[in-house]
């Protein structure tokens, strides 16, 4: 018979998996926090001086290593890349927000996968395995699509899938925080992407921080005007969400109206007027870039070594 305590623990685990990431996102990070880890700020340490092209290569190599090795390599790399945040401007704050973001992504995706991994998937992942049962869910959890039991293998599998994205995410955010949009675009120009598309991407990169800022403002103003003030403060996250949804379309209209001016001002400066009117200068490569490149090469060598040692990824993703 399923005891009351077991039921309690099951529900606690369920609510923790769903609630913890939400709490972290809305309460601890907020739209302002997101803005801080997605926008460039001027500073002068190693990472700010490295060529963005090398940082893109770095992110690609991180992706390669993480997808070809066992899950704990991904975990180590995630921590390593995150610790680089400390060298940035307001490093401690960025490390704090970045870690919260990665943690919430991790907990969220772990609980998004682990209870649902089917026996058949696991038997492809770990051939001839004997399931190590950690927890048995109440039978009515099946309504939510939960498997009857939570196995150690399901957790391992979900961990691997979760860490696949976190290391890459952390290193990609590093690029955005340490380079201006124009530096990144000058790098992308090397890949022969047409100028109008580069222009469009630049507008988009500038806009991301505006979107977060205006949405944040819109939510706060709606709260100030009394949205949800007559209800319990525990319902605040729900009203936060309602305010965000109500603010979305007006924010789109507001920013797009401003976009008209951006278009006109680019046109008056003769953007795309003649073939040679608009041009892009590439970013130079200096000594520091070779140091960074050395790290990249070390990562690749490490990847090969790990695979030879038998810690390669052998599981398929669903």
């Amino acid at each position, binding site marked *: 018979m399923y005891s009351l305590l077991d039921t309690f623990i099951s529900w606690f685990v369920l609510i923790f998996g*769903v609630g913890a990431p*939400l709490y972290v996102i*809305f309460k601890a990070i907020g739209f302002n926090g*997101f803005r801080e880890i*997605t926008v460039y700020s001027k500073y002068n340490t190693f990472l700010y001086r490295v060529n963005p092209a090398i940082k893109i290569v770095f*992110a*690609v190599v991180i*992706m*390669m290593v993480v*997808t*070809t090795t066992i899950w704990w390599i991904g975990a180590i790399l995630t921590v390593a890349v995150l610790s680089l945040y400390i060298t940035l401007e307001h490093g401690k704050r960025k490390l704090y927000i970045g870690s919260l973001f990665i943690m919430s992504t991790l907990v*969220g995706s772990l609980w*998004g996968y682990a*209870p649902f991994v089917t026996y058949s998937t696991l038997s*492809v992942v770990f051939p001839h395995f004997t399931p190590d049962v950690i927890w048995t869910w109440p039978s009515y959890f099946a309504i*939510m*699509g*939960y498997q009857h039991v939570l196995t150690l293998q399901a957790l391992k599998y979900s961990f691997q899938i979760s860490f696949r*994205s976190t290391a*890459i995410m952390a*290193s*990609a*955010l590093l*690029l*955005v925080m340490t380079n201006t949009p124009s530096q*990144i675009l000058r790098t992308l120009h090397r890949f022969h992407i047409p100028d*109008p*598309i580069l*222009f*469009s*991407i*630049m*507008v*988009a*990169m*500038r*806009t*991301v921080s505006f*979107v977060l800022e205006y*949405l944040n403002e819109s939510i706060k103003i709606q709260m100030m005007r009394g949205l949800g003030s007559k209800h319990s403060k525990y319902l605040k996250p729900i009203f936060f969400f309602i305010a965000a949804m109500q603010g979305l*379309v007006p924010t*789109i*209209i*507001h*920013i*797009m*109206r401003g*976009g*008209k001016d*951006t*278009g*006109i001002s*680019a046109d008056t400066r003769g*953007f*795309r007027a003649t073939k040679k009117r608009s041009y892009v200068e590439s970013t130079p490569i200096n000594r520091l870039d070779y140091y960074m490149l050395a790290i990249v090469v070390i990562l690749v060598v490490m990847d090969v070594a790990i695979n030879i040692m038998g810690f390669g*990824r*052998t599981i*398929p*993703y*669903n």
Partner: protein
Amino acid sequence: MIKMGFNGIAGNLSEPGIIPWPIVAIYFALASLFLFYIARKNGSLSRFKTVDYVYVGIGAAFMIVWNFFVGPFLDKFVPSGAASFIGFGSLGQFVILLIVIGVVRKVGVGMLGWAIYDILADIYSYGFGGEPIYLIYKMFAFGIIMDLWIAATRGKPFGIGSGKIPKASDTNVGAKAPAGSSGFVSASGASAGTGSFLSKPKIIPVIAGIVMGIPYAIAGPIFFTGFFAPLLYGGIVDWQAIIFSMYASLPSFLIFGIIGSLIAARVSKVLG
């Protein structure tokens, strides 16, 4: 052992159950040719202005914010068993892109929008792994659907706008709207118009939402799980799962397609 090809692409074309690559290639080529043919024939092919690139960029920025900071956490509100029925991440992107095509209204904006979003998503989160396969996937599986609709409606995807060939009966549809009277649009679009719910200005967005929503729900599972996932990282092809997720995501795409199209119609009225 999973082999590693160029830029993290496993290059696995012989997974059991995978759609043969010539079929995908031929579909993409034919769809593009067909798009070009209709656009050419009814004259809806027109050059992008600078402001159009700005609008697409703004739309892509919203898609990024949605997909990385809002969508994944909204999905947590959905009971996990219903997750295959509602995926807020992709639905939000769909609605935002509908608004963009409502404002730009030129053939190619759907594909351009997905392309810009894809490059931006690489900068912000994915780190250019698996490119350019993801770029091709998003442009040709999703973007082209919107472009075909724009071409079919001669540059008036939601019944509003000045297409290349203005017809006498169509011109007064956009003119009747109180252009930018308040600047505030209710999310449901319920305040638009004074006539019956399905008055003429509304019936076109509703049809647009249905026509674009159905292929969107179908294209994702078929092309990604059925072809690109095994190609990219050796994902398992399970046709039962593909067909299930097609049916499962259909209602939500229809509903959000219609809501999104109504919002898009309103936004494009406001922005003129």
